[in-house]
């Protein structure tokens, strides 16, 4: 069972407290953007995901904890969490991920 660091609680907690919530950094188009979006673009936003092998930016929810959603970089091959961060933060650069891995 994984240990996941919640960036809101600032604690490592067991996986059981969390729920996976899909790929991160997919921003919902606002109403003006929606109005202009083609069906193809909308379906891409809705349904197309990267399905990355390697470091994946994804959303987690601390369901049985602080109730907050946050983002994480998890390696889909090794299942290792490299880092977690708040949803308001930008996606870490490859360099930042590398540094975090060596921590």
């Amino acid at each position, binding site marked *: *069972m994984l240990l996941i660091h919640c960036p809101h609680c600032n604690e490592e907690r067991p996986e059981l407290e969390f*729920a996976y919530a899909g790929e991160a950094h997919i921003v919902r188009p606002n109403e003006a953007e929606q109005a202009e979006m083609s069906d193809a673009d909308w379906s891409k936003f809705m349904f197309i995901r990267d399905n990355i092998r390697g470091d994946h930016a994804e959303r987690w929810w601390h369901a049985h904890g602080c109730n907050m959603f946050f983002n994480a970089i998890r390696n889909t091959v090794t299942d290792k969490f490299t880092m977690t961060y708040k949803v308001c933060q930008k996606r870490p650069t490859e360099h930042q991920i590398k540094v975090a891995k060596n921590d």
Partner: protein
Amino acid sequence: MTKFRRPGHGNVDVSKTLNFSFDGKSYQGVQGDTLASALLANGVHLMGRSFKYHRPRGVVGAGSEEPNALVAVDRGQGRITPNVRATSLELYDGLKANSQNRWPNLKTDIGAFNNTFSMFFPAGFYNKTFKWPASFWDKVYEPFIRNMAGLGPAPEHPDPDNYASTYGHCETLIVGAGPSGIAAALSAARNGGRVILCDENPELGGSLLSTPGVQIEGKFALDWLAKSLEKLRKTENVRVMSRTTAIGYFHDNFVALAERLTDHIPGVEIGPAREKLHRIRAGKVILAQGAIERPLVFNGNDRPGVMLASSAQTYLGKYGVAVGNEVAVFTSHDSAYEAAFNLSDSNIRIPAIVDIREDIRTDLKEQAEQRGIDLFLGSAVSKTKGKHRIKSIEVFYPNTGSKQMIGCDALIMSGGWTPSLHLWSHSKGGIKWDADLAAYIPDQANENCVSVGACNGDFGVAAALNAGTKAGGGRKKFNTNEFDFGTGISLDTLPNYIDTSKQKAFVDFQNDVTEKDIKLAVREGFKSIEHVKRYTTNGMATDQGKTSNLNALQIAAKAVDQPVEKVGLTTFRPPYTPTTFGAVAGYRNDQLFEVTRKTPIDPWAEAQKVVFEPVGIWRRAWYFPKKGEDMHQAVARECKATRESLGIFDASTLGKIEVVGPDAAKFMNLMYTNPWNALKTGSCRYGLMLREDGYIYDDGVVGRLAEDRFHVTTTTGGAPRVYRHMEDYLQTEFTELDVWLTSTTEQWAVIALNGPNARKLIEPFVEGIDLSRENFPHMAFREGKICGVPTRLFRVSFSGELGFEINIPAHYGRAVWEMLFEAGQQYDITPYGTETMHVLRAEKGFIIVGQDTDGTVTPFDAGMPWAVSKKKKDFVGKRSLARPDLVAEGRKQLVGLLTEDPNVVLEEGAQIVADPDQPIPMDMIGHVTSSYWSEALGRSIAMALVKDGVNLTDTDVYIPMPGQTHTARITAPVFYDPKGERLNVV
């Protein structure tokens, strides 16, 4: 004293005699025995029949690696455990064990004809033979295979025992209490952190128990062991756990330990926990699992009496049992000489040591000579004889082709050693091939974990002690006096003059896989070791190939003509040894299997002898049968009473979320399809929620308490996901909104009153709300008091009758219910359950999300365009409602169905076709979603999702069912009081 017991040897208490039975025959053993050692002490080697060929089999190992000696243990009161390894089964007085996979008995087994015909049973036999006709599978092939091949029968009744589970934490977890594990614990304990040392055996000490002659720091092994264990037990931060198997190693140093608590105690009643699963999170894990000796793969190597050399040493050293009077040795490794010499020194005759190698260490030669043991170097055992026990071996010298028969009553073998990589591999640690050991050993760790001792390839007591000490943070180097573990060679095929096709050289004893089978698999094109494994089933038995995997790998590698390290190893998976379902389930059994959520009014319903049904994880009152009533009669009565006078219903399970904040209305506008700005304080409205893909997700009535406060209700099953859905959007998309969400499902009990007399009943109990028709109209929502208790009172109706939903603080729920129920007697108040609720709502055409919708239904499909705001520029799901597929013609739409025969109640889920005479497979145009007997209408009614259904109104469709095709007419889905006049009763 039994025949093969050697007094003065072993760590057992020969003064304590234990009586036990095996296959109904009585025997005696002593305290400290396993079933296997006790049987061997009685001269019994034949302990089982093999899986496929039913060949007689004896014990091979002395621990959890045992492939052959599997027995069923009967502990009384329905407690039967099949497939227990006799080598791990602690003897107790009164133990009853039986052999398995034989009929009528172990010595005469009818199934053994498989053995005679074994040339017909090669790898893949079942796949190739039992193939067609397909109809033979159920009735002929499967019962045959199940009867013939198999382990012990599963118990017929539920396991009556109790099981426990717990979590634990430590800085250092050490798996395995042999010399390396104990040394690691001693040095880790000094650092002050919490240490857990566990071992699967009842006695700690590992290999030291088998070799009591070894000296450590000038002390004999058992003395050093006793002193070390005493020290550990006295150290406060150390927890020593015996009979505790580390069954699996999971992410982030999470290790599952299964502790056996009572199986070794005679006469334990049902009650105390039989096993306990410890879920341990460790800072560091030290694996000291040891190594398992490898059998040699030669013709006749499965005869009872043929066993591992180290096992024979263990039976002598640990249990004081001689495995025979004349024990021959066959080896390719120096370590077997230690076993041979130990046995010889205990007056067991060693008629021969057969060694594959032409040349061996001089000291071994000298020692053998001193003991008068004949050495056969550069030789191999080419066949064995004896029906139920080995009688003789044939030694073959390939250089000259000479052969010689040698008598014996046991043969001990060693093909080298296999470090136990199981837990290391569970943790996804890397492994590398060690050519000298001819085995894989740990490489790069994937967790904070080290492997020490024999499981890391550090053989010998001193090497193990030193490695363990280092892993625990110490620096001490140990002095020992021990047999030089030495080296060996590993051959894929042993020399033999007999044609391979006529040999029976077993690799996997438990699954009856021979050398031939593996070569055949390769010839037939299975090149990957994972495929060879699955095709031959090598390593797939309950022992997971602990003794066979590396031999199979070497044979397969040779057959594909590749170096072993290129072929790779099959995957190790938890559990390390077979584990009871009870241990995994722990407390989560019976009533505790799943939490049952109950409403505050549930005890009242229970007292009425209600019939409950599960809804999500709630249990809800389904219907309230009166004496002699069946479900149909009860529901008809409940429906009638509600429509004619008054029904009372427990709606406490409805999900409730309080949406609060300056931007609450804005948030509601985004989450629901309906417009919320115009909803006045003191009113409520039906709300429809979509997912972003445009499909209906949930619905419920929403009341406005204030400008900035909404009381949202959800479906019973949908409450958690709706809350998550809202939180998700609020936290990650609509972050600019100032809103708080609180789940209040458990805070409120909800009593629904429906029927023309509903208002009359509550009027005298309500304070602070004017209930008159004008001032409290349909869809009004107020706060006040009822029965002196604060209430949020809705005037809503899910039945089409005058209705109220009374929200009261949960702990007042039952009291208010009982007051209303008593006062309602004047109106013949009738409690009703979910079934009547469903009928009443279906008569009105109200949908149930998840029953009449299935995740592919839009509001337009469901006939609810009125619920979707046209003015709002955005809400979740809005853009998707314009997706091409969602606006296309021919979508399935919700309609009503009236059967031609009013007495036919269609089956929910039944498929609908337009033309019943078309050829099969028919074109299915939809399915029935809801279907009931309507007492109010005196006929059946149904709802259905039908392709282009609205356009098909007033046409007939057909529902083909077994034996009969029903005809039904498509209608509007509102069957009762379509104008809604009954809501406005005075």
